[in-house]
């Protein structure tokens, strides 16, 4: 006789796992849901081993073990504790109670989670669990968690939120425990409720007797739409685990079907790749439904199949005799829909089956074989997949090299232009030709950049998860609307955009949107709307994060700025200037620190990240109606808009995004400190001056301020510096050439570019220069501290 094991666990998932594992090993498994239940089971069972959980409702593991040990009958029965706990104190308690051993649940957390998740999904599919809003929300969260678990399992990393996933398993188990909402019919097999319309009597199958004629349509449909669906799955559809059968099952619930399978493209078995797709279906659906719900059936496979859904005839009176005639005429006129009666020899020659096609007598009978769009001829079918997959996979390196070469082309073009004009050969004709060449070069450059471009969709999809998480954590209801997710941006930009965008979305939900009750009071819908949109505008990509929340509380922002000494008490600030205060480092209006915001990582981090990408950020806010943050980003990081300046006789490029102003100082406004440090006095504030030529070692002697130009730049953390250079040459777009691979990281220099005359110009790393300027022994701030 099999040995019996009693398992006591409140988690259905755990019980299932134990049952499967132990029964597979040949044990007889008896189950109990908690300590009380376990004791109850023990009145009738005498197990060889007891396995119990610790944390259970009604009677926990400790109490259960004690009660079992008190009962003389089970003196020698080993009791094992199987739990997620590994606390020494609890172990000791279990031992004192009489436990024999302690096992920490050794199950793969991802598998355990997946099991609980799948159980809940199964219930949903079989209709035993209603897809209520909170159920959907829970399942979406569960899907997110499962993604994390799978990723953790793949990388071998520890699961970040083990407690959270245990809680989620408990919630999923709770879902599974909900009794079925009174099934409409007797318990049916899961996933296949009431399959009425297509009742084929096939009871005689397998016997020699002829099967009854398989009438494609068993009963007249309730009302009349004749919808034709032509459906050819692509390989990708099956690769994503979609199943044609399930789609057709879905359709069959909407009315009666006549299905014809096109096997023309099917190869013989030895040439068949089982994972590929060679069949196509033409489905005629008689239904009361409109086209939209029919299309919805295919919603999830839309991109992965060829699909046409057309209505062949308008609605009609089903009981109209003329309708029957029209139907018969239509059927007769459609040789394609002959009945193939090999399976029913007795019905080989009789007239077409009595198909009831309710066609309006007013509507002209559709010409055979129906609308062109609905027909797939073998020739067309063969060329369609080729059109649908007209893409190639290319190594990113090759594209990067092409981008580099195009950069060289741009440089050669400027070299040519410069040489021609210096030689005095720039006639109208030459100029026009060079101009055309320039346009072409730019077009090629844009085209090459487009190869590397990727749509923002995956990034936006990640944001929908962030929205769910933050909405959950803050108890707010959020509807995320995305727009323009097909907008393409260079992949280097997309990679660096994720963090700032996440931060902005957290900020918008936490600070922007109000709580549901506040929204109700304000006459808004309880669920706040968060819009994420992207678009191309004049060579840049514009990403907008907007909410319909309360807008920026300007008086509060001003108050906080005052209390932190960020603005003078008498400062006259416009609304826009107040809004921009929230970008100052360390600024936070939340009174409490939460996991979402108020951690000191403010919007200044976002602004810095966007600036590092060569982008800008703009706020628009309207009290009571919401705020919107607009990011304007370059399409690529391979090009840079820069200011060409001269310092120490060298040409340097200063990124335009860092520059906030420039001025020609008067000697009187620049004050000397100590050994060569300088401060500029301008409109009431002092700004440290950095002599770029000296800082980079181009010159030993200081540049005289009145002979140079000061570029006012804003560096990391909002620090302002005035960069002293000799002259400004030009403003232009340059191709970035990385120096890191050749020279390593050079402090103060971000990269280099090649100018039209073939000379190399270094691109200034403004942040590094600014911090070096202040940390330098001769740095001005330090001097200031000594002086002050």
């Amino acid at each position, binding site marked *: 006789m099999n040995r019996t094991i009693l398992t006591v666990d409140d988690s259905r998932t755990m019980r299932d796992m134990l049952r499967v594992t132990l029964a597979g090993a040949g044990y007889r498994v008896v189950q109990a849901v908690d300590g009380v239940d376990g004791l109850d089971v023990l009145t009738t069972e005498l197990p060889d081993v007891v396995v119990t959980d610790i944390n259970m409702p009604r009677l926990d593991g400790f109490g259960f073990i004690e009660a079992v040990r008190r009962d003389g009958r089970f003196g020698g029965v080993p009791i094992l504790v199987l739990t997620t706990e590994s606390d020494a104190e609890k172990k000791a308690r279990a031992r004192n109670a009489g436990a024999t051993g302690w096992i920490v649940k050794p199950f793969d957390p991802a598998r355990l989670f997946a099991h609980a998740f799948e159980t809940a999904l199964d219930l949903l599919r079989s209709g035993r669990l209603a897809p209520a809003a909170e159920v959907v929300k829970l399942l979406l969260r569960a899907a997110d968690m499962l993604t994390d678990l799978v990723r953790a399992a793949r990388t071998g990393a520890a699961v970040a939120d083990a407690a959270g996933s245990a809680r989620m398993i408990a919630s999923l188990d709770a879902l599974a425990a909900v009794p079925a909402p009174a099934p409409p019919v007797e318990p049916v097999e899961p996933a296949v409720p009431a399959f009425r319309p297509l009742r084929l009597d096939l009871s005689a199958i397998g016997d020699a007797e002829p099967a009854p004629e*398989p009438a494609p349509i068993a009963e007249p449909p309730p009302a009349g739409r004749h919808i034709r669906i032509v459906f050819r799955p692509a390989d990708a559809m099956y690769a994503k685990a979609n199943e044609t059968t399930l789609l057709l099952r879905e359709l069959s619930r909407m009315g009666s079907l006549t299905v014809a399978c096109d096997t023309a493209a*099917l190869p013989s078995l030895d040439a068949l790749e089982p994972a590929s797709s060679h069949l196509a279906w033409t489905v005629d659906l008689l239904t009361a439904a409109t086209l939209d719900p029919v299309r919805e059936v295919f919603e999830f496979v839309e991109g992965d199949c060829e699909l046409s859904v057309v209505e062949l005839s308008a609605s009609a009176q089903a009981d109209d005799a003329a309708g029957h005639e029209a139907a018969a005429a239509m059927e007769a006129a459609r040789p394609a829909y002959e009945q193939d009666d090999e399976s029913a020899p007795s019905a080989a020659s009789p007239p077409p089956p009595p198909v009831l096609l309710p066609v309006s007598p007013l509507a002209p009978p559709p010409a055979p074989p129906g609308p062109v769009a609905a027909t797939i001829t073998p020739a067309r079918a063969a060329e369609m997949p080729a059109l649908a997959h007209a893409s190639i996979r290319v190594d990113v390196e090759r594209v990067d090299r092409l981008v580099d070469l195009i950069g060289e082309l741009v440089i050669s073009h400027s070299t040519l232009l410069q040489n021609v004009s210096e030689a005095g050969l720039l006639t109208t004709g030459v100029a026009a030709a060079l101009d055309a060449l320039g346009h072409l070069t730019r077009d090629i450059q844009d085209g090459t950049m487009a190869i590397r471009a990727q749509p923002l969709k995956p990034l936006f999809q990640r944001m929908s998860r962030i929205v769910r998480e933050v909405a959950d954590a803050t108890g707010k209801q959020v509807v995320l609307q995305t727009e323009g997710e097909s907008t393409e941006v260079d992949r280097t930009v997309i990679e660096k955009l994720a963090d700032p965008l996440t931060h902005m979305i957290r900020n918008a939900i936490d600070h922007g949107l109000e709580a549901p009750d506040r929204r109700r009071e304000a006459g808004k819908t309880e669920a706040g709307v968060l819009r994420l949109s992207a678009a191309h505008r004049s060579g840049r990509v514009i990403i907008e994060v907007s909410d319909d929340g309360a807008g920026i509380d300007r008086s509060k922002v001003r108050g906080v700025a005052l209390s932190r000494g960020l603005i003078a008490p008498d400062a006259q600030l416009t609304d826009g200037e107040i809004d921009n205060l929230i970008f100052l480092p360390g600024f936070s209006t939340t009174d409490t620190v939460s996991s979402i915001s108020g951690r000191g990582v403010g919007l200044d981090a976002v602004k810095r990240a966007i600036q590092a990408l060569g982008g800008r950020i703009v706020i628009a806010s309207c009290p009571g109606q919401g705020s919107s943050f607009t990011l304007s980003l370059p399409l690529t990081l391979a090009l840079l808009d820069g200011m060409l300046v001269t310092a120490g006789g060298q040409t340097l490029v200063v990124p335009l995004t860092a520059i906030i102003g420039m001025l020609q100082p008067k000697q009187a406004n620049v004050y000397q400190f100590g050994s060569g440090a300088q401060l500029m006095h301008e409109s009431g504030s002092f700004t440290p001056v950095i002599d770029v030529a000296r800082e980079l070692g181009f010159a030993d002697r200081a540049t005289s301020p009145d002979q140079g130009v000061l570029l006012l730049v804003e560096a990391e953390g909002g620090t302002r510096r005035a960069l002293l250079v000799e002259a400004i040459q030009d403003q232009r777009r340059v191709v970035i050439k990385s120096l890191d691979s050749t020279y390593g990281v050079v402090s103060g220099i971000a990269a280099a570019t090649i100018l039209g005359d073939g000379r190399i110009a270094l691109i200034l790393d403004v942040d590094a220069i600014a911090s070096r300027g202040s940390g330098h022994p001769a740095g001005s701030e330090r001097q200031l501290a000594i002086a002050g």
Partner: protein
Amino acid sequence: MVQQRAKRVRNPGRTEPAKQRLDAAAAAVLAQTLGSSAEPPIELDASCVELLGAQALQVLLAARHPARPARPFSIVDPSDAFVRDAALLGFGHDLVPLTTAAR
């Protein structure tokens, strides 16, 4: 995998119980089972089938390709689900087309 140990022998050859879910994974197994035309005819026991997927159907149809038939097979004891799914996909229980597609 098709369960070998549960094999039942019938007169014309062998009977193999098909899997409950004839999905993509089962299609690959079926393709292997039916792959060689040199093998003796086989009976596929479809009494436990809960789902007939399009890819499994594809394999079954390809095995009866008019130009190059593979291992002969017949389907025995088709379950209700098998019959229903086959009909939904446009075929009778014996994989004979119910209607012919419009050309």
